């Protein structure tokens, strides 16, 4: 006979405000095998935990049910509590009375109490069949894959490498640097982006612990936490990375003009070129869609001038395979495409530009050498209008706040004021101006001091006058007046949006996406650096829009999390794994085909002189996902901690009540 202790948590008023906890306790006491039932304001507090521990000793309890919040929140806490009282931690069952009862049924307390009672009945029914289990320990690879070479990937790689971990940094572009390499100056200190980024890029290239793979994409990831097997493909550069010295002689002779990607297509480069002025590695790359030699077997001028003999038109993509213990995803985000919003005329009017294009125009190494000019006529603008919240806080496109647009426009307005002088008019049309970070409000104050006009209202559209100049009507809610603003240059504060290849990435790394389209963290407040998949961490804007300080903070955090996971060379795994009952196994191999972790092996066994094929689960590789158990037609596979006996006991307890009410069980 089991001796069960039931503990109902109030969770302040989260549960007790809806569910009548005293009634739930009364009901629990009436259940068979329940020796003691109690309720308390915060079960997870020290008082609550020691209450459970004392009861275990005093009443010799051998099974514990905690009816509180989701097991994802505190199952681990209560397992520790139980283990400290010398009871096997897997003899605990957590019943979710918060996320699955009091929160969704907050407006119907009586029904919620009824449901809570039934959930507790089911928990007690299951807990009796639980078996003591031991955690497994497996050894792990002490190296990390970092995907994405923007500031997040760079920071995470450097932190890991400095801590003595081997890092493989994979970047799909020909150079690392990411979005930050396109920026002119950074808020709120106005230090130049390149000055703080390029030293870090060089550090990455020089660090003995970092293997840098540019122009490379990850194509396959298998395995599990601590033991991921990664396949990556290094695309052809058509230039030998070891030989090229970055002299750019080839670019000077190449006759084919190509839009420059780093300058957002505002200028042209050549079919063979170095990705950006600060590129790391500083190695040329040939664009195969434009190169005359690769397309028509013509030209070849670059080969003639290259003294290093680095150009190799025969170069093939290279497949690279390696094993890592953990993965940090720092794949970044994209900038909203404002041509989806026809009213602002982006794409129709040359002088309507995006904020990232403004960065390039304002950058000293950009297409204009840092001179702010109108793209249409090359003249410096006499009035610049910034329009906020383009594509963000907009239910037609993205509902979230882009978190950087306000500060980016403030910075760009200050740059415009500094570069264009006092005679130019600078306007920012905003709905809410959000300056929330450290030093940000002071930055806003600085912009106000520089005679930048803040218009409290968004224009409905941008129109062109008969002479081709742009103007816009804006209603300012501060002065209750409709203003007509003439603009030589309109800058749209485009927000950050999820990468278009997130679908591919989420499938490849088995990470999910949140409602806004970004990659989902394990817990929005308590585990923001991890993905729900063990051993995969998130850094930077792939998890949600972020500015540089937040991105760097998250990247360092993700690196520490990876160090924390791998530093001991061993990790503990939950003992939740599949077990094959060999007598029932028919050797049909269905389990082998469904297992995502390749944990099922088929072995031949001789019984009474007949050879039989039998499935076997490799303990270290099984992640306990349960796919094989549900797929097995013979019912020969069972999940530890979720055996048929345990689950059916719960189902039976639930259906008994339904039957008593006149419904049919299941």
């Amino acid at each position, binding site marked *: 006979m089991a001796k069960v202790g039931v503990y109902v948590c109030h969770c302040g008023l989260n549960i007790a405000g809806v569910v009548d906890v005293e009634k739930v306790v009364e009901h629990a006491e009436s259940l068979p095998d329940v020796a003691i039932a109690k309720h308390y304001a915060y079960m997870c507090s020290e008082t609550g935990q020691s209450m459970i521990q004392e009861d275990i000793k005093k009443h010799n309890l051998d099974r514990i049910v905690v009816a509180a919040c989701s097991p994802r929140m505190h199952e681990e806490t209560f397992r520790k509590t139980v283990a400290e009282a010398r009871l096997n931690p897997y003899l605990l069952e957590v019943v979710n009375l918060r996320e699955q009862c009091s929160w969704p049924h907050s407006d119907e307390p009586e029904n919620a109490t009824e449901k809570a009672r039934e959930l507790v009945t089911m928990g007690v029914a299951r807990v009796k069949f639980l078996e003591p289990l031991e955690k497994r320990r497996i050894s792990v690879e002490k190296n990390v894959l970092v995907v994405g070479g923007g500031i997040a990937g760079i920071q995470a790689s450097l932190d890991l490498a400095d801590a003595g971990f081997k890092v493989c940094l994979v970047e799909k572009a020909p150079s690392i640097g990411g979005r930050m390499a396109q920026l002119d100056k950074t808020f709120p200190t106005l230090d130049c982006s390149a000055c703080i980024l390029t030293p870090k890029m060089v550090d990455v290239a020089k660090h003995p612990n970092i293997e840098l793979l540019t122009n490379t994409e990850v194509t396959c990831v298998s395995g599990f936490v601590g033991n991921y097997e990664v396949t990556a493909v290094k695309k052809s550069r058509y230039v030998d990375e070891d030989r090229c010295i970055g002299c750019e002689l080839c670019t000077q002779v190449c006759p084919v003009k190509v839009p420059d990607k780093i300058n957002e297509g505002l200028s042209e480069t050549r079919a063979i070129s170095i990705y950006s002025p600060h590129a790391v590695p500083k190695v040329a790359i040939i664009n195969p869609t434009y190169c005359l030699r690769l397309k028509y077997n013509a030209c070849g001028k670059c080969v003639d001038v290259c003294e290093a003999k680095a150009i190799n038109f025969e170069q093939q993509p290279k497949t690279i395979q390696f094993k890592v213990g953990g993965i940090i995803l720092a794949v970044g985000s994209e900038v909203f495409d404002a041509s989806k919003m026809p*009213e602002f005329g982006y794409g129709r009017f040359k002088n309507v530009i995006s904020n990232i294009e403004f960065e390039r125009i304002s950058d000293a190494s950009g297409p204009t050498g840092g001179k702010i000019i109108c793209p249409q006529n090359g003249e410096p603008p006499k009035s610049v209008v910034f329009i906020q*919240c383009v594509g963000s*806080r*907009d*239910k*037609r496109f993205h509902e979230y706040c882009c978190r950087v647009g306000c500060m980016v426009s403030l910075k760009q307005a200050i740059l415009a004021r500094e570069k264009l002088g006092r005679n130019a008019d600078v306007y920012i049309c905003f*709905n*809410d101006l959000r300056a929330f970070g450290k030093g940000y409000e002071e930055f806003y104050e600085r912009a106000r001091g520089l005679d930048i006009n803040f218009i*409290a*209202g*968004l*224009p*409905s*559209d941008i129109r062109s006058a008969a002479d081709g100049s742009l103007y*816009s*009507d*804006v*209603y*300012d*809610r501060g002065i209750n007046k*409709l203003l007509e603003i003439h603009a030589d240059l309109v800058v749209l504060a485009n927000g950050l949006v999820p990468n278009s290849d997130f679908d591919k990435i989420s499938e490849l790394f088995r990470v999910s996406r949140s409602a806004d389209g970004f990659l989902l963290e394990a817990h929005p407040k308590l585990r923001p650096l991890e993905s729900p998949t063990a051993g995969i961490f998130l850094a930077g804007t792939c998890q949600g829009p972020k500015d540089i300080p937040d991105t760097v903070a998250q990247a360092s955090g993700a690196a520490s999390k990876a160090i924390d996971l791998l530093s001991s060379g061993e990790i503990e795994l939950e003992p939740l794994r599949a077990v094959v009952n060999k007598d029932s196994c028919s050797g049909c191999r269905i389990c082998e085909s469904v297992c995502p972790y390749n944990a099922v092996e088929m072995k031949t066994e001789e019984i009474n002189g007949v050879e039989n094929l039998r499935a076997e689960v490799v303990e270290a590789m099984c992640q306990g996902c349960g796919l094989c158990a549900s797929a097995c037609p013979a019912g020969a596979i069972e999940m530890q901690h979720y055996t048929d006996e345990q689950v059916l006991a719960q189902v039976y307890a639930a259906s008994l009540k339904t039957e008593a009410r006149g419904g049919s069980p299941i």
Partner: protein
Amino acid sequence: MSLIDLMSMAKPNLKSREKFLARLGGTELVNCFQCMKCTSGCTSLKLLELKPHEITKLVRLGFVDELASSDIIWACATCLKCVQRCPQKASPYHVIMALRNLAVEREANVPEAYLKAVSQILETGVTAPVQKVTTKKMEVFDRESLKLPKINAPKESFQSTFLKALEEKQ
């Protein structure tokens, strides 16, 4: 609601607010964050001082009665720019139309032109009366001189259907 408009000493009427919101199918159409995009582009703002954002806010605050008896709701030119461009998918246009319907129901301050248009349709079957047209060369044409067929008065069945439809709408 615990507020007073000190300029007119008007108090919000919660009952009419609730009724009106039910008519709109909830708060979705007045879910406004006052970005002014509708008012910035409003066709009727410059001449008739219609401010769609004010109408949405006043409805939310419960000044439905004041709006239903005001002139301003009849200023909307129904260009639908506000519906198309609203980042919150609110719709001042739909709110204004609902307010107009409310005004008709209450027989409050409906502009004469609108009432005339209704009787015009009842009598002739068309929204605008048949008019003579003067060209730039000062020639005057009518349907007859252009050899267009005469427009007959609508049948009685049309009138009864039209009246019935009007009643059902209310």
